[in-house]
């Protein structure tokens, strides 16, 4: 299982703040996880279409190639706008 979190406009677009997910076979990177989520269709296609979506693995910014393994916390969010 991994823990998924969604923030800000992404959270609102998906209608969910997060979920627990059993990592499917073959999904071991942020990029593969995005493809898996996009395949749900509808609002979830944003994981395939958005170029600006950011990811963090275990609370550290992570690119598409970053490893994802059971027990990880993976967050997706739009570019940050604090300060």
């Amino acid at each position, binding site marked *: 299982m991994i823990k998924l*979190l969604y*923030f*800000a*406009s992404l959270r*609102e677009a998906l209608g969910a703040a997060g979920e627990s997910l059993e990592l499917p076979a073959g999904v071991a990177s942020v990029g593969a996880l995005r493809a898996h989520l996009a395949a749900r269709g509808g609002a979830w296609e944003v994981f395939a279409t958005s170029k*600006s979506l950011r990811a*963090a693995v275990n*609370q*550290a*910014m992570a690119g598409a190639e970053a490893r994802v393994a059971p027990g990880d*916390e993976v*967050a997706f*969010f*739009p*570019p*940050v*706008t*604090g*300060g």
Partner: protein
Amino acid sequence: MAISVQEADFDCGAEIAALSAADDGAGAVASFVGLVRGENIRAMTLEHYPAMTEKALADIVAQAEQRWQLRRVRVIHRVGRLLPGERIVFVGVSSSHRHDAFAACEFIMDYLKTRAPFWKKEETAAGAHWVDARESDDAAALRWESGR
């Protein structure tokens, strides 16, 4: 370094005083306060990623401490709903050297703007919307990569 993420307001005068208190070598304190601009905004709500926020800020401060000779660093970022004119963020840096204090303070703000997990939602007369990230903020952060 001291980092706070909080709903409560903060006291700039007390924070600045604490940055040099009982430190004979702290001859320079640079600080920055970011406020909610009110031109077309009724209110602003700041969301963040609690488990990551302080970690991200601590990483930014650690990078500043590697690049410049600093004595103390203080970062405060508010979350929740804020009204125009309210303080959002405070960054203060003490150093023996004026330029180090200025550079580190601006570096921390530029990195915070592009790397710390905060998101702003504005309430306007036309409704609420999430604030778009600005290319000028990305450019400001990138400046520090090339060593200007």
